[in-house]
């Protein structure tokens, strides 16, 4: 018989969760709620005695100091009550730990059919509330129908005896696992079945697939193992492996690029090869600190003689767009498995984030699945729980608002890890599988979660996108597995390790079997969350928190002992072979017998037409505007713009100090509120060597030219790590492309050829700038199809494509953390220097955007000119000649000078006539141009000569002074006062837009 325990805080305690809901109901919808109390509900579907129930109630689930609880409904009064619980099969982390605790305390083991489910009741009091308001709160603030179910009850309809009843979201499948054979008599048949089963096979691949299965020798070999036409599992395997997400068909495609205006035409075969791989290999040959790139789950660089760092970045856009919290937590926890699965495995050191969403206050006609404000809330919380509960500091991040992200949001997550240079005497960055190695699956169990996640990410989002791929990450299970695998690694028990993410076992085993050249898998051995999954579902399920490990048979016993010690489930599910075959069976019956080299042969390359039209051809031009007479008001309005104002509430929710190595935090300055240029950590506590990390996103520039968007993004990320004390000779990069669909379609994607040209140009900039700055690409990923079809007015749907976006992450070794810099002005009397050349480059700027223009003169990167400037600055920082260093980024000199003053709570007096720059720039261009390659630096007057000597012949000039009067004053080039604003006013204005958020 099931039991239901309700737990709530004693009435004298503040219900913070209820208060937050009350605030949001008012802020978001104007719904007045007088009070909200929350009740945690545990539905215990297990055969327990009265005494056992009492024990767990008192000793586990009720805090005698703060809580009351009851097995009958708690009599809290309400006008409206909202109950929210998970749908069947959705990961219920708290339900699982409840089972663990009960089993431990009572010394029992729950049966396979028994379980514990958590849910919540919200008791809302408010005289003005009605059913519609309660429904809105339930559906638009609390629950997401993709993963949750809810009920709304009025006080009148409430039965105090039965309460919410016994709602048990147990998965019941009543299904016998079945392997289905797929007929391949014609391309059309296979295409039809692919559509029916959401296989997402590329139509161009279908003839190749059929050709393989129709081959006489293949058929003979298959007949010998009782197989004929391909099974569903085999086609799923091929589909996963061939998906754009896994195989990067777009980047490996053939691009017919043309610029009709100048009669230029060329063909580029494989952007990945030409723009990413070749330059990185070239740089690897020059830089001995580049340890491992381009093949593993993450790239590896040398930290010191005994340690390597590991870095990669991912996106989790589609799932986050559907279920923000679940998508984001799954994303961050998922990217953390990449360093764990690099070489023999790395310990996680830090994470970073980048969110691109629609405006928080969007009130237009388009109806995205989740309003951007709610979506952002969920994404922030997902990364919060995923990072904090993993014990990994989140040291840097960014948010970009742009209405074009209404179609699909972008959620970038980056992970950095650390591995010893040697494991048990072997090079830690190497790994391989060998025949007879055991295939071991570690971590979570397998359910229907995430099936077709990879293929869904390769589709454009619509209201009909299957929702089944949304999951909720479980950092607790993963943290246990992380600790276990590191111990196993250090004992030399891990031959190969990779994560189960996109494509599940299909990808992890399929890819790892390439090393030994074969595998045999007994699928019935895979532990399941519940019975009734088909074989193909077990094979491709993306259930989270799992790693696939290859271990030698003689190490199995020790491996399993360690696994038990860490309370981690590990199961041998097969072995590696050298037969050349991917061989999968279920209870002795074969379900797959495919040549591993099938994927390497014969599939057609994707092809794209890419037609570039220059900004001038597209009619872009500079606006005809005058200069502002009220520059003070203008600067204040700029500081309040959503993309420039304070977002302190986000990094404050993220643990950025765990592991004890925090050096430069995400928020710096006297009031610890100004976003730092970069984060710095000291990953090896006994060492004073650091790692600086920053990333950059400048999608607005793509409206003019994605080449310069990309160049500026890389330049900004580089300047960020240099500003805090990074080493120019040791900067690694991670590129994360998020691009709208580039395949031309006259109806559905009429500008596909232009977007393809933007991609070609962007990749070229990546190559050009990385070579010029000597930044090897340690890792990178691409996520295509960031488009959405949104319903709007009159029932018209609109395709909304994200701007062409590339996030660039830079990581740099810091030789001595005691020389690191922060950006705030340190002392009155210090001199202010502007380093770098200011140009007439307001195109795509925040300033133009504020005034409603795009412009034409997008900032450009002159890497050959900038590099010696960066070298000089690095020397100045290395000799401690600077007191503060700030890069000048979005918003230009005006905005960043204000931040330097605000950070130090000191005044700055600047004179624009000394700014190094092009001649004939007007004052607003000097203030707001976003020219790349620039820094604002303060220097102790006593160090003036040494500092200036380093910059001889370079663009660098003293443009003012730090003052004790807390005002920002700027004189125009003609000597007149351009602006004079109190620092307190700047801070208040800058903090106001998000000031209420905690």
């Amino acid at each position: 018989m099931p039991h239901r325990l309700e737990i709530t805080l004693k009435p004298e305690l503040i219900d913070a969760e209820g208060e937050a809901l009350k605030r949001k109901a008012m802020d978001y919808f104007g719904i007045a709620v007088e009070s909200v109390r929350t009740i945690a509900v545990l539905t215990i579907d297990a055969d327990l005695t009265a005494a056992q129930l009492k024990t767990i109630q008192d000793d586990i689930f009720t805090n005698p100091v703060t809580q009351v609880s009851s097995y009958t409904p708690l009599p809290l009064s309400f006008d409206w009550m909202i109950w929210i619980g998970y749908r069947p099969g959705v990961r219920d982390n708290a339900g699982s730990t409840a089972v663990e605790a009960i089993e431990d305390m009572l010394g029992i083991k729950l049966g396979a059919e028994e379980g514990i489910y958590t849910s919540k009741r919200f008791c809302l009091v408010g005289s003005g509330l009605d059913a519609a308001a309660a429904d809105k709160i339930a559906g638009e603030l609390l629950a997401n129908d993709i993963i949750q179910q809810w009920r709304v009850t009025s006080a009148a309809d409430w039965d105090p005896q039965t309460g919410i009843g016994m709602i048990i979201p147990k998965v019941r499948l009543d299904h016998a696992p079945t392997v289905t054979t797929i007929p391949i008599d014609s391309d059309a048949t296979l295409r039809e079945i692919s559509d029916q089963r959401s296989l997402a096979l590329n139509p161009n691949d279908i003839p190749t697939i059929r050709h393989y299965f129709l081959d006489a020798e293949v058929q003979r070999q298959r007949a010998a193992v009782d197989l004929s036409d391909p099974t569903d599992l085999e086609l799923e395997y091929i589909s996963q492996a061939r998906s754009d997400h896994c195989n990067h068909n777009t980047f490996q495609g053939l691009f017919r690029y043309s610029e009709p205006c100048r009669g230029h035409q060329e063909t580029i075969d494989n952007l990945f090869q030409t723009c990413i791989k070749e330059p990185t290999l070239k740089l690897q040959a020059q830089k001995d600190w580049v340890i491992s790139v381009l093949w593993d789950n993450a790239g590896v660089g040398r930290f010191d003689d005994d340690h390597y760092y590991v870095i990669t970045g991912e996106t989790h856009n589609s799932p986050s767009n559907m279920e923000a919290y679940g998508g984001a937590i799954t994303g961050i926890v998922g990217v953390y498995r990449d360093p764990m699965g690099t070489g023999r495995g790395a310990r996680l050191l830090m994470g970073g984030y980048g969110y691109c969403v629609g405006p928080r206050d969007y009130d237009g006609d388009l109806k995205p699945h989740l309003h951007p404000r709610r979506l952002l809330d969920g994404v922030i919380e997902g990364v919060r729980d995923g990072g904090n509960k993993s014990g990994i500091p989140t040291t840097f991040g960014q948010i970009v608002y742009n209405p074009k992200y209404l179609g699909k949001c972008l959620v970038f997550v980056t992970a950095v890890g650390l591995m010893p240079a040697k494991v048990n005497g072997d090079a830690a960055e190497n790994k391989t599988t060998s025949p007879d190695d055991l295939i071991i699956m570690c971590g979570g169990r397998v359910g229907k979660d995430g099936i077709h996640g990879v293929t869904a990410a390769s589709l454009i989002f619509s209201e009909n996108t299957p929702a089944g791929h949304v999951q909720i990450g479980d950092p607790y299970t993963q943290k246990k597995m992380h600790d276990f695998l590191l111990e196993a690694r250090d004992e030399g028990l891990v031959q190969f390790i990779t994560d189960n993410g996109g494509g599940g076992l299909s990808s992890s085993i399929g890819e790892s079997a390439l090393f030994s050249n074969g595998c045999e898998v007994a699928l019935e051995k895979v532990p399941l969350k519940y019975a009734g999954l088909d074989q193909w579902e077990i094979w491709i399920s993306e259930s989270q928190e799992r790693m696939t490990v290859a271990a030698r048979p003689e190490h199995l016993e020790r491996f399993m002992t360690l696994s038990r010690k860490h309370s981690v489930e590990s199961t041998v599910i097969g072995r590696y072979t050298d037969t050349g075959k991917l061989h999968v069976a279920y209870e002795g019956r074969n379900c797959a017998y495919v040549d591993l080299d099938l994927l390497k042969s014969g599939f057609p390359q994707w092809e794209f037409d890419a037609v570039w039209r220059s900004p001038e051809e597209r009619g872009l031009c500079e606006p005809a505007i005058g200069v502002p007479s009220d520059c003070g008001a203008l600067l204040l309005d700029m500081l309040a713009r959503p993309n420039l104002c304070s977002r302190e509430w986000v990094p404050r929710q993220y643990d950025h100090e765990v592991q004890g190595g925090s050096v430069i935090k995400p928020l710096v300055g006297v009031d610890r509120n100004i976003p730092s240029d970069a984060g710095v950590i000291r990953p090896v506590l006994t060492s004073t060597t650091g790692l600086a990390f920053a990333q950059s996103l400048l999608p607005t520039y793509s409206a003019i030219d994605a080449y310069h968007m990309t160049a500026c993004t890389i330049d900004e990320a580089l300047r960020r790590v240099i500003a805090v004390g990074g080493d120019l000779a040791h900067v690694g990069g991670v590129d994360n492309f998020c691009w709208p669909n580039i395949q031309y379609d006259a109806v559905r994607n009429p500008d596909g050829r232009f977007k393809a040209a933007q991609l070609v140009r962007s990749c070229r900039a990546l190559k050009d700038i990385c070579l010029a700055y000597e930044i090897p690409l340690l890792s990178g990923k691409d996520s295509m199809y960031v488009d959405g079809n949104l319903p709007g007015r009159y029932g018209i749907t609109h395709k909304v494509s994200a701007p062409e976006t590339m996030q660039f992450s830079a990581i740099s070794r810091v030789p001595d953390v005691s020389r690191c810099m922060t950006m705030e002005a340190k002392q009155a009397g210090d001199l202010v220097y502007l380093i770098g050349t200011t140009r007439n480059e307001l195109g795509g700027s925040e300033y133009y955007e504020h005034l409603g223009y795009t412009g034409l003169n997008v900032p450009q990167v002159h890497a050959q000119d900038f590099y010696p400037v960066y070298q000089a600055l690095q020397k100045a920082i290395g000799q401690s000649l600077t007191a503060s260093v700030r890069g000048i980024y979005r918003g230009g000199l005006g905005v960043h000078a204000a931040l330097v003053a605000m950070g130090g709570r000191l005044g700055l007096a600047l004179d624009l006539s000394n700014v190094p720059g092009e001649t004939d720039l007007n004052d607003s261009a000097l203030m707001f141009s976003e020219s790349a390659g620039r820094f604002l630096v303060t220097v102790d007057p006593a160090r003036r000569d040494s500092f200036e000597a380093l910059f001889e012949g370079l663009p660098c000039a003293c443009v003012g002074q730090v003052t004790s009067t807390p005002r920002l004053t700027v004189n125009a080039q003609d000597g007149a006062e351009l602006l004079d604003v109190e620092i307190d006013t700047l801070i208040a204005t800058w903090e106001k837009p998000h000031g209420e958020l905690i």
Partner: protein
Amino acid sequence: MTATVRALVLTGFGLNCDLETAYALELAGAQADRVHINTLIAGELRLDQYQIMAFGGGFSWGDDHGAGVLQAVRMRTNVGKQLLAFVERKGLVIGICNGFQTLVNLGLLPGFAADYQTRSIALTFNDCGNFRDDWVHLTIDPDSPCVFTRGMETMDLPIRHGEGKFYAETDVIDRLVQNRQVVLRYADAQGNAAEGRFPLNPNGSLMDIAGVCDPTGRIFGLMPHPEAFNHWTNHPDWTRLAENRRRQGVSPLPAEMTPGIRVFVNAVEHFR
């Protein structure tokens, strides 16, 4: 030759500050072992080999049913007697953040009248409604028996928690104050009581309480993280401090140990 002081730092089940806590103890002169909770439960290691026991930060069992609750259940059920014997033997216990939450759920704190099993204080959800990472100023009661804070008056430390609001019935708090068991209180930069003001008091703790000890001073629980102030570059003001020091012609970072490490040195010194 000084005697070896052995410290045990718990790991496993979602705990996550074990590396830096062990490092801080080593810096302080102890020999620190990171020990999985299951190793203790299995009896492969016994507490009587140790003088100091650290319940560190993290999210034990995901903190799904109240922070530190399931860790306390697990420890009480499996090694409860050993724990009490450790306390009886006058071992030192420090509980940091999730560890503090565990100590109060075990009943090791407040430990009134040598009762180390009754739960009468709690750490509950922050009033601000969210997890928060920030540095706080703390004042230290010089008359507290707390072994860990001897000779210290103030310190700055980071807090990083969602459930750090100190809560107890009024009579319990009165008794804590009377016994000088309130070791740490949130304050402003000048050392004045925070008096509940956010964010000086980051979670709404009653009486600004950030850390308490048992009446003997040997069991100490605190929400802030001393192990995360193990180097001067951890402090949010360090770049300004370093700049000032350079201008005075001295090395950018002070040579002496950080206040965070001093907490652990006090513990090690206690046995010497």
